């Protein structure tokens, strides 16, 4: 059968598309959870502990209950009982809110005041007197802490590795770099604070939430409140950033559900900026020891990487900093360790490129030190240690173009003209230097479902429980669906962020688009088959349209194992004033290999955003814990500095063409790799500028003035 020649259709993917919701966002029409009006809405305000460890002795509710508008004060004495064991990725006791009188850290939720208005709720929360039986606490993290221990087995834990004979290889190495690197506590600070509205309607629990995955949140809530999964519906309209903080910990959501269940009216809880510094998971501090043993020409014999990070006494979360060491460089032997120190601090969690970001700082700094020791160009050193297969896994790479990234980046950055000597370039009061680092991030896929309906009017509706947390996911999925259906993106309606659409991976782990795209492609194939099997043509569709579903669970389980990552190369030029300690980044370039790039516009946005995080991690970000209280001394945006506009110079990001069908969609994910290696590139450039090696982040005025001491 022949078909009449159609005009050639331009592929939607790979061409720039502005955000579908862009106009709504810039005109203020787009609503975030805290903005949406609901009839009869009551407002909850969280009260958090001011002591680092102890027990609640009393909660003086009488005074507050007599205040104008106050409806209830929830506290451990009257809270709903929750089902133990609930959690997104295994049980997480952080969800067990108001269940007992134990206070595990400063900032732990101890009560929720619910009132008619947000102002009344806040006034009640401010007035609530809580007394504590305080206990001695320990919030000071250090790598030689006596509480240091191996991590407990968990789905997230990278197992320790002993491969080859590290001791023998160290002994045989001509050069050994053996250094300790540290990174401080860091905080996501999504622009939109966490918020959730919960209400019971027609026997169902409806939650409008700010999250990275409504299906996962619905599952957690169902488990926590012992509800049928079908009873719970979680959705969001727009989400203003997540970065890993809107999925694992849900204090706002859990307490909104608890309050609405008790009060029988809609309740919204919005976290304050300060509360976001202790309740939504943050990147823990790390202390990392890296030992690289190499031959005189820089070929690695052994990679040792031990990372330690603090966790809470509530739940163990370990920063998996050794991930970087597992995929970057070939070596004859590996010794990799992950350790934690439980302290009386908030539980850390996922933050943009968890593990990869701090791990890459340590390893890529150590590689720069090795290059200087051996007298090899830092890029040449990396090329010399390029592996054939996964260095630890032994698996074939699904694709790997680190070399291409380094070479293309070197060409565009002008690396060939670089004088390797440190501390010899001046521009007025500034010393100038350049640095490079490699980047990687796992390219994972999570099981997802999707449904596509061919509507009677000739358009298509895609339903998938994706989340667009500002990344442009809606737009990218529209492009993917359009290509899969061979129609224009304008004829495709994208509906996301509703748990009723079924199982889907979160907007996390750089896996969202890759996971949803696979399911959408499968659904499109199924739909086109269904449509082809229909008698008649598209004009004869039933009023409800024709819908096809897909579920990638089995396809995913049947995949062969591969070493599958995105790779990249980061370059930075910095200026350092040794007299004032000021460090300014003058330019950054990132070249990435991340498989298929669906939307160049939003992809570049993600890369540049990530690289800005890397700059900020290198120079600014540091949570300072106050030993006198156990709380953060700078837990707000005045005290916790993130890079501001004037700190961010020319940042260029680009990518190389890469075809990798390990995921049939060709997508490897690119949300997080932009931060990986960024801090190391800056730190390596600071060394090149000044001759002083900075192994402790951030590279503050104080550290520059004191020559890089801890």
């Amino acid at each position: 059968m022949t078909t009449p020649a159609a005009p050639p259709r331009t592929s939607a993917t790979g061409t720039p598309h502005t955000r579908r919701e862009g106009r709504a966002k810039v005109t203020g029409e787009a609503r975030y959870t805290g903005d949406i009006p609901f009839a009869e809405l009551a407002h909850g305000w969280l009260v958090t502990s001011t002591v680092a460890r102890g027990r609640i002795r009393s909660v003086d509710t009488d005074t507050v209950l007599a205040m104008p508008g106050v409806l209830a004060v929830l506290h451990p004495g009257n809270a709903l009982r929750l089902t133990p064991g609930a959690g997104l990725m295994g049980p997480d006791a952080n969800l067990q809110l108001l269940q007992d009188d134990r206070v595990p850290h400063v900032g732990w939720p101890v009560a929720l005041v619910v009132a008619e208005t947000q102002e009344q709720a806040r006034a009640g929360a401010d007035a609530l007197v809580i007394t504590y039986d305080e206990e001695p606490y320990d919030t000071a993290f250090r790598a030689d802490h006596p509480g240091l221990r191996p991590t407990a087995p968990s789905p997230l834990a990278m197992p320790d590795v002993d491969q080859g004979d590290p001791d023998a290889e160290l002994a045989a190495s001509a050069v050994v770099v053996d250094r300790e690197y540290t990174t401080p506590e860091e905080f996501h600070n999504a622009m939109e604070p966490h918020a959730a509205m919960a209400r019971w309607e027609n026997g169902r629990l409806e939650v409008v939430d700010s999250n990275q995955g409504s299906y996962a949140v619905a599952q957690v809530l169902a488990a926590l409140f012992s509800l049928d999964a079908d009873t719970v519906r979680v959705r969001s309209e727009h989400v203003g950033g997540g970065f890993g903080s809107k999925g694992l910990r849900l204090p706002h959501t859990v307490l909104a559900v608890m309050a609405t269940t008790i009060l029988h009216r809609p309740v919204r809880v919005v976290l304050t900026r300060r509360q976001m510094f202790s309740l939504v998971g943050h990147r823990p501090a790390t202390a990392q020891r890296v030992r690289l043993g190499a031959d005189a020409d820089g070929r690695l014999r052994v990679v040792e990487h031990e990372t330690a990070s603090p966790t809470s006494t509530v739940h163990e979360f370990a920063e998996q900093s050794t991930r970087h060491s597992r995929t970057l460089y070939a070596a004859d032997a590996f010794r990799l360790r992950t350790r934690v120190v439980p302290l009386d601090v908030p539980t850390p969690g996922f933050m943009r490129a968890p593990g990869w970001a701090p791990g890459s700082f340590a390893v890529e700094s150590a590689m720069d030190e090795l290059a200087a020791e051996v007298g090899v160009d830092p890029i040449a050193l990396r090329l010399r240690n390029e592996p054939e297969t996964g260095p630890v896994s032994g698996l074939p790479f699904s694709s790997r173009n680190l070399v291409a990234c380094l070479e293309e980046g070197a060409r565009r950055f002008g690396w060939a003209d670089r004088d390797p000597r440190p501390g010899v370039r001046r521009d007025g009061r500034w010393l100038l230097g350049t640095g490079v680092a490699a980047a990687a991030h796992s390219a994972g896929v999570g099981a997802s479902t999707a449904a596509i309906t061919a509507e009677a009017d000739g358009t298509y509706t895609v339903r998938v429980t994706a989340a667009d947390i500002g990344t442009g996911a809606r737009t990218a999925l529209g492009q993917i669906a359009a290509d899969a259906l061979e129609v224009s993106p304008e004829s495709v309606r994208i509906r996301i962020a509703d748990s009723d659409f079924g199982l889907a991976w979160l907007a996390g782990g750089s896996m969202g688009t890759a996971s949803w795209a696979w399911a959408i492609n499968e659904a499109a194939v199924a739909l086109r088959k269904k449509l082809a099997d229909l008698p008649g043509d598209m004009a004869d569709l039933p009023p409800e349209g024709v819908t096809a579903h897909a579920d990638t669970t089995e396809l995913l389980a049947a995949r062969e194992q591969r070493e599958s990552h995105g790779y990249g190369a980061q370059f930075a030029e910095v200026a350092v004033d040794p007299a004032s300690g000021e460090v300014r980044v003058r330019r950054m370039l990132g070249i990435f290999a991340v498989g298929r790039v669906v939307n160049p516009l939003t992809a570049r946005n993600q890369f540049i955003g990530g690289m800005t995080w890397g700059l900020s991690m290198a120079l600014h970000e540091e949570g300072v814990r106050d030993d006198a209280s156990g709380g953060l001394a700078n837990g707000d945006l005045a005290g916790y500095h993130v890079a501001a506009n004037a700190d961010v110079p020319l940042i260029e990001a680009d990518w190389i063409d890469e075809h990798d069908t390990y995921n049939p969609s060709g997508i490897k994910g690119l949300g997080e790799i932009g931060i990986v290696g960024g801090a190391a590139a800056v730190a390596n450039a600071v060394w090149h500028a000044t001759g002083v090696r900075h192994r402790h982040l951030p590279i503050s005025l104080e550290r520059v003035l004191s020559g890089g001491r801890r």
Partner: protein
Amino acid sequence: MREFDYRRAADAHEAVALLSGEPEARFLGGGTNLVDLMKTGVENPALLVDVRGLPLDRIEVAGDGALTIGATMTNSDLAAHPEVRHRYPALAEAVLAGASGQLRNMATVGGNLLQRTRCGYFTDLSRPCNKREPGSGCSALNGEHHNHAILGWSEHCVATNPSDMAVALAAFDAVVRVLTPEGSAEIPLADFYLPVGDTPHRETALPDGALITGVTLPAAPVAARSRYRKVRERASYAFANGSIAAALHVEDGTVRDVRIAFGAVASRPWRAREAERALIGGPATPEAFAAAADAELAAARPLAHNGYKVPLIRNLVVSTLTELQEAAR
């Protein structure tokens, strides 16, 4: 936030009268600091008297060249004023180094002088702070104090004054003009900010109920060659870790006039009179600048975690005076 009354004054006398006898009242200028403190519960006024509309928003030039800057002039207008930019460039630079464009459009000169410390403990109601709650203790002394004082502090308080503008005013011998129910008065800036002592909650010599109406800058030819240099942890939106306002007049290699003030080192802008004394009549060399800085910093008592400020300030003295000298050549 406590509910409060709001009154708008038509002139300075009415403003003073409105505040008179109201111990829990505050003047409201641009509100860029006071309103934040009200939101966090540090300030809980019962009455705000809005003085931003008072006709005190201009600069007057006296016959001898002195400038009187009206108290309700915005920071933006101050920094843009030709007389300030040409005759006191360090003042314009200092103002522009502070806050953001949006804040400078709101903030007033009088309010800038009275802004409170940004010590984190001062705004954290759950922690002791002698400035906020006299007698409760100083959390910063043995706590987080990377950006606290190295000069003039006491065990009762180690907080710094956050103003950039006031550092330049201190260098140029500014005089604060005030109005009280009893009449007008003048307070030299050198006496305006009180020593910390054991009363860190008493920050200024402003009499109760007094309104700042303006600031007078005496004529100072040396100020025409002046600079403000602010060092901070990021390029904008940050308070200083150390700053300097400096003016230098050199003839035949000899220092004839010099003004130096530091910011972010004490509870008030720190006029470096020891350094000035060491320089006057001597050679204008980097060695002399360094020696002068050392003379001033001999009094420095860094805390456990802010010792970096001593070399920072020393380096700023040398580099800023060197730049001023080179620019004059």
